[in-house]
Structures are given as structure tokens and as C-alpha cells.
């Protein structure tokens, strides 16, 4: 461990704001990039199922 205490870790020698902002924003963007295709897949499947059911009803 490079830092002596947790508060020092958060403070990052006075640059805490910059470091945590960079990491935080990147984490948010990465998570969005993972979640989006997963949600998209769910939506695709839902749409397709609805369509299949509709076609079964009409036939």
C-alpha cells in the first residue's frame, strides 16, 4: 500500500478531485456501454416474441 491512511488515499495528495473524477466518469461510461447492449437484447427478444404471438393468433 502506497498510502498510509484511507483519507490520504481519498485525498490523493491534493489531486483527489481530478483522479476520482477521471475514474468515476470512466466507470460510468464503461458500465453504460455494457448495460446498453444487454438491455437492447432484451428489448429485441421481447419485440420478436410479441410478433410471433401476433402471427400465431392470426394464423
Amino acid at each position: 500500500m502506497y498510502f498510509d491512511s484511507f483519507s490520504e488515499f481519498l485525498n490523493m495528495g491534493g489531486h483527489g478531485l481530478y483522479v476520482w473524477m477521471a475514474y468515476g466518469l470512466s466507470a460510468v461510461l464503461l458500465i453504460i456501454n455494457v448495460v446498453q447492449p444487454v438491455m437492447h437484447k432484451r428489448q429485441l427478444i421481447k419485440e420478436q416474441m410479441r410478433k410471433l404471438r401476433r402471427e400465431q393468433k392470426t394464423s
Partner: protein
Amino acid sequence: MWKTFVAWFHRMGSPKWFYEISGRWIPWFAAAAVLLIAVGTVWGLAFAPADYQQGNSFRIIYIHVPAAILAQSIFFLMAIAGGIGLIWKMKVADMVAKSCAPFGATMTFIALFTGAIWGKPTWGAWWVWDARLTSMLILLFLYFGVIALQSAFDSKQSAARASAILSLVGIVNIPIIKYSVEWWNTLHQPATFKLTEKPAMPAEMWMPLLVMVVGFYCLFAVILMLRTRNEILEREKRTHWVQGLLSKES
């Protein structure tokens, strides 16, 4: 050797095969990505020594550099996949190329944003017309162009081909742009302090960086496969195997 490669290449062209194999690969890549990024982040934030000049703000490097590397290699991959789709009319390659663009743009944006944040304590300004930052900004514009062109076409096939041409033109231009921006930068600001050029970084500094780069590549692989699978589902929804798959899922 060549024959197995050709056979593999042709199987890659089958959306069904890609869908199945990527379904098996995703968990492994996802696990590797989570593990490597977690290890790299903790190592880089908490255990790596601080830079003797920049102090702890230097820890941004563990995001900034992987993002910048990814931003460039994703554009490269996008152009190659687009070229394969263009020449051999391979549908999967088209879908891969399309799936590259959003994550590539995100990586470019992260590289720019972290660069700007890093610049504040280092240079005292959020934005500096540094050669690397400027080339990254232009790369971001190129990504936006590809994404905009992709969404402008009604036909998916034409969209894929048009953006393949644009990304190939872009890949030819990127070295020219980089060279000219670097030349321009030295003309206007001789001897600026460089963000990432460090004289002989010690191992405890670059090891976590390496872990992060590999982790980012794994994450990219996961997202690329997720997106490509969605594209396959959407474009092949009329085929029997997709319909069979859907009835199993529900």
C-alpha cells in the same frame, strides 16, 4: 495450416456459428475483464508509487493510456472488418464493424476527458492544444462521422458498406493527420511538457498499466460480441435458427 485458417474464416462468416461460439466465449472474457480491471485499478490507485513530478494525479494514466490505445486499435479493427465485409461480402464482418463504432467513440471520449482532467493539475488548464489531445479530438470526429453515416442509410447493407469505405479512408488519413498535427504542434509550442512520455517508468508503475490495457481489451471483446450478437438477432430474425432460439429463450 492455411487450409484450417480458410475453413475457420468461412465459418466466421456464418452468423449462426458466430452467435454460438461467442455465447460460449463471453463469460470467460467477461470474467477476465472484471478481474484484470479490478486488479489494475486497485494496484494503480493504491499500490503504485506516485510520480516524482506530478504526484498522485499521475494515477489517471491507468485509464487514459488504455483508453487511448483502445481508441486507435478499435478504429483499425473497424476499418479491417469493414474492408472484409466490403470485399468478401461477409455479413458478420459488417456487423462487427458496426458494433465497433460506439465503444470506440466512448474510448476516444474517455481518453480526451481524462486527458483534460489530467491537464488541469499538470498544465494548469483543462485544455491544451497538445499534439496527442488534438489527434484524439480529430479521431473522435472521425468516429462521429462513421456513426452518423451509419444511421443515415435506410438499408443496412448500404450503411455497412458506406461506413466501411469511410473508415478505410479514415485509416489512410490517420497517420497523415497525426503527422501533420505533431508538426503543427511543434511549430506553435516548442518543447511542451508531454503527458505520457516518461523516462524509463519503473516496473511497479507500468505493470498495473499493462494489466489495465489487457483488461480493457477483454472488456472490448465482451462488448463487441454482445453488440454483434444483437445485430445478428435483428438481421437474421427471419431465419429458422433464430426463431427456434427465441422460442427456447421465452
